[in-house]
Structures are given as structure tokens and as C-alpha cells.
């Protein structure tokens, strides 16, 4: 167990590699109740979020979700978010645990004419992720899961308890995220964990360590590693989340519009280490003996069987790269992100 933004979280339940592989080959459960859930409600909720966030949320169809960001007036990223439009006049903003107080505070300050309610403490989040997630969840819900597209959700019971079930995740696999009342979480978790799988065993649980290697293989950014207040969405290669084409002003618009036209200071690359030694956050990336950037996330990839890393480098994404792994320069091969893409 580990302290994670004030939540006592399992880093691993058993072997994190086995947990990772279970998500890639079958399905596993994650307890993500530490994530922040902030409801924005009322007739003006969509327009209020259009002003507060970089996305065009008023245009979101009820039942759909968007990946978006909260930016500071200078364009720096304060958090990356998933926003669900759960009903015509209700949005649910999902924030990273460590950033939830900041997101709540900013939303309350930026939003008038809509309600902003922190539901983190009363909401639990259980994710079921993996190629068999739909098959594994189907027996427990009357929802027609196959009719829920990627980045959409619906209200329905899971194991007899009310929930919001969305086809979203942070693993690079198909899967669902189940938001329920905190008091119903144990019941739902136990029902799913005890379910019969192809091997006759229940669904295994996966911890934070597996969650991190899964998202890294999937090339997904982690706030604090690839994203931060000193960086715009453009520099993270995520300029698509900034909807400069939406009507009206929004926080950071002027600065972001300038950055949109510039060539970013640096770019995010994927590296596969040619050594067995593992690149870690902060290690220098070099070209011809000269430092050109630094590793933001690195880990041994269970799927590739090699260490992988994401790194920010100055200038172009071409050339040969080395990573300074504790004083020794190890060769690394430049690769397209993501490192892993599931077969459809």
C-alpha cells in the first residue's frame, strides 16, 4: 500500500506484471476511487465549462465524454480531465486525485450561473479494463454495453446497484469505468471479483503500478510527468484539446492562441531502450553526447519485454538517442507513440 495524494492505494495486489498482462489478455479490476468527481449542474453548465476549460463542452451530446484540460491564464496545464455529459444539465468532471482541490477551486472561481459540487467523497470508481471487459461485465448489468461507444456512458445498475457506466479508461484496452455511491462500491467490487472467468477464476485486481505501465505503453500522458503548469497542451502534443474554434472567451484563450501558431519548444517522443537497464523520470536524453531532453516516464514494458520511455526533447524528432542511465549512456531507439495499440 502507498500514500497517493492522501489516499491509501495498493501499488500492487500481487505481481504487477501479472496484473498488467491480465489487462492485456483478459480483464482486471481497478479501484480508482481516489479520482476526483466534480459535478457541474444547471441550465448554464455547458457554457460555464466552455469558459472554464479548453474544450467545447456545451456541444457535447448527453451521454458522451471528452478528454479536456484545465489551463491557467498563461496557458499552462493545471490538470487533464475527462468530462461526461451525464444529462442535459449535468456534467461530471473527473480530476486527478492530487489536483482535485485545484480543479474544484478553479471551477468554483471561474463558474457562475451553474452549480459546482465536489462529489469525490461520496463517489467510488471501479474500472474493468481488458479485451474481455464487456463480456465479463455483461452478466452484471441490464445495460446494453455493446451499444455504448468509446467515450460514452449510461446510467444503469451494476450488480443491482445504481451506477454511471462509461466506456473509458487509461490502459489502452477496451473497458468500462463504473461510478457508484461509495457505500455500494464493496458490493459491486466483490460481485465482479468473484465472477467466473474463462479460466474459472474471478477477475483479478490491478494496482497503481500496473496502471502506470499500461498507460505508458498506451502513450497516455500522466499529470506531473508529461503534463504540468510549465507546459501548454501544444507542447505535450495535445493541442487538439484546445478548441479555439468555440464561441466566446475562455481562460487562457489569448495565450493559447499565440502558442497554437508557434513551433513548440520541445516535442514528446517515445524511446525503446536497447539496454536492459530501465530509464526513469528525469534521466537525461542525449544526441551525440549532448543533452537534448529528459525522460518524463520510463518503465520496463511487460508487453514489449524491453524498457520504454517517453521524453521531451528540443527540436526535431529525428536522430539517434542515448539515455544517461545513472552515469552510463545507453542507446535507445526512437519510436512512434503509442508503444502498444490494441487490435480492434
Amino acid at each position, binding site marked *: 500500500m502507498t500514500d497517493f495524494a492522501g489516499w491509501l492505494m495498493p*501499488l*500492487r495486489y500481487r*505481481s*504487477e*506484471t501479472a496484473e498488467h498482462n491480465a489487462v492485456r489478455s483478459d480483464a482486471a479490476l481497478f479501484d480508482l476511487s481516489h479520482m476526483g468527481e466534480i459535478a457541474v449542474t444547471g441550465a448554464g453548465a455547458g457554457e460555464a465549462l466552455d469558459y472554464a476549460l479548453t474544450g467545447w463542452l456545451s456541444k457535447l451530446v448527453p451521454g458522451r465524454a471528452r478528454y479536456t484540460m484545465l489551463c491557467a491564464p498563461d496557458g499552462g496545464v493545471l490538470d487533464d480531465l475527462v468530462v461526461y455529459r451525464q444529462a442535459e444539465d449535468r456534467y461530471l468532471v473527473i480530476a486527478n486525485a492530487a489536483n482535485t482541490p485545484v480543479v474544484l477551486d478553479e471551477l468554483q472561481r471561474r463558474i457562475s450561473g451553474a452549480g459546482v459540487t465536489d462529489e469525490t467523497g461520496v463517489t467510488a470508481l471501479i474500472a474493468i479494463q481488458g479485451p474481455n471487459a464487456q463480456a465479463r461485465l455483461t452478466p452484471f448489468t441490464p445495460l446494453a454495453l455493446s451499444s455504448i461507444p468509446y467515450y460514452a456512458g449510461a446510467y444503469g445498475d451494476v450488480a443491482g446497484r445504481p451506477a454511471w457506466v462509461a466506456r473509458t479508461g487509461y490502459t489502452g484496452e477496451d473497458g468500462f469505468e463504473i461510478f457508484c455511491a461509495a457505500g455500494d462500491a464493496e458490493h459491486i467490487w466483490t460481485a465482479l471479483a468473484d465472477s467466473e472467468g474463462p479460466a474459472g477464476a474471478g477477475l483479478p485486481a490491478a494496482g497503481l*503500478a500496473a496502471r*502506470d*505501465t499500461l498507460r505508458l505503453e498506451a502513450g497516455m500522458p500522466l499529470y506531473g510527468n508529461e503534463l504540468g503548469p510549465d507546459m501548454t497542451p501544444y507542447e505535450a502534443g495535445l493541442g487538439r484539446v484546445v478548441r479555439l474554434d468555440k464561441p466566446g472567451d475562455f481562460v487562457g484563450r489569448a495565450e493559447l492562441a499565440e502558442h497554437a501558431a508557434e513551433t513548440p519548444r520541445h516535442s514528446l517522443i517515445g524511446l525503446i531502450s536497447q539496454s*536492459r*537497464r*530501465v530509464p*526513469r523520470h528525469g534521466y537525461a536524453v542525449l544526441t551525440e553526447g549532448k543533452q537534448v531532453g529528459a525522460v518524463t516516464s520510463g*518503465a*520496463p514494458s511487460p508487453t514489449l519485454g524491453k*524498457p520504454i520511455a517517453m521524453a521531451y526533447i528540443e527540436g526535431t524528432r529525428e536522430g539517434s538517442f542515448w539515455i544517461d542511465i*545513472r552515469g552510463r549512456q545507453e542507446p535507445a531507439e526512437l519510436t512512434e507513440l503509442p508503444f502498444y495499440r490494441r487490435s480492434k
Partner: protein
Amino acid sequence: MSVPAELRYTEEHEWVSVDGDTASVGVTDYAAQSLGDVVFVSLPTVGASVAAGEPCGEVESTKSVSDLYSPVDGEVTEVNEDLNDDPGLVNAEPYGAGWMFRVRVAAGADGEAALPAGLLSATEYEELTKSAG
């Protein structure tokens, strides 16, 4: 968590087993569980001199890398080549197939292998891991 009574331990979570003048070294079950899945072990080379308390290798796991310290002074006579192909042996059998290296320890005045004074007994090591939480 297992702490075999017949072994000696270090505060850096290595175990030592002495047979004649040869000390076998590995990391403890506690260390293996704290590290998580071990993915790579960098071992000293055969013939290298190692000194007690000095780093002589690295243990990489999913989340972290740790220095491997020699618990004794001497010369490396053998390393566990199996860890190259299967570093997970460290997790599966930390006191058995997951051993790491062997050292020829110089004999002391009594003709026995001279072990550093600071090595811990199983009971002392167990106390240490409990106080570490």
C-alpha cells in the same frame, strides 16, 4: 514473509549464507516484496573484488532501481547466470534459485571465513523489518 533462521542479514536487506570460505548472497523476501517484480539484475563480474557495504550491482524492478551491496569483503567466484533470463526468480525464490553471487571470503585468525561484525541474525533482521513497517 520468510526469514530463514540459518542465514545472516544486512540492513540493506541482503542475506548471506557461509559454506567454508564461500559466502552466497541474495536479497531477502522482504526486499523482493518491497521492490515488486524484479526485471533486471546487474551483478558483479567473476574475479572482481567486493567490499562490505559497497555497491556492486543493481536490482531493477517495475517501479524502482536499487543498489546491490556486498555484505562481505572478498573476491567474486560465481554469479547466478539464470537471473539473466529469469530475473523473476528473485521474487519467486529469494533464498533459493534467486541467489545472486558468491564471494571467497578471506580467512580470519581462527581459520574461519572472516565475516563483518555488523551482520544481523534472523531475529535481529526480523526486528528491523518490523520497525520499518
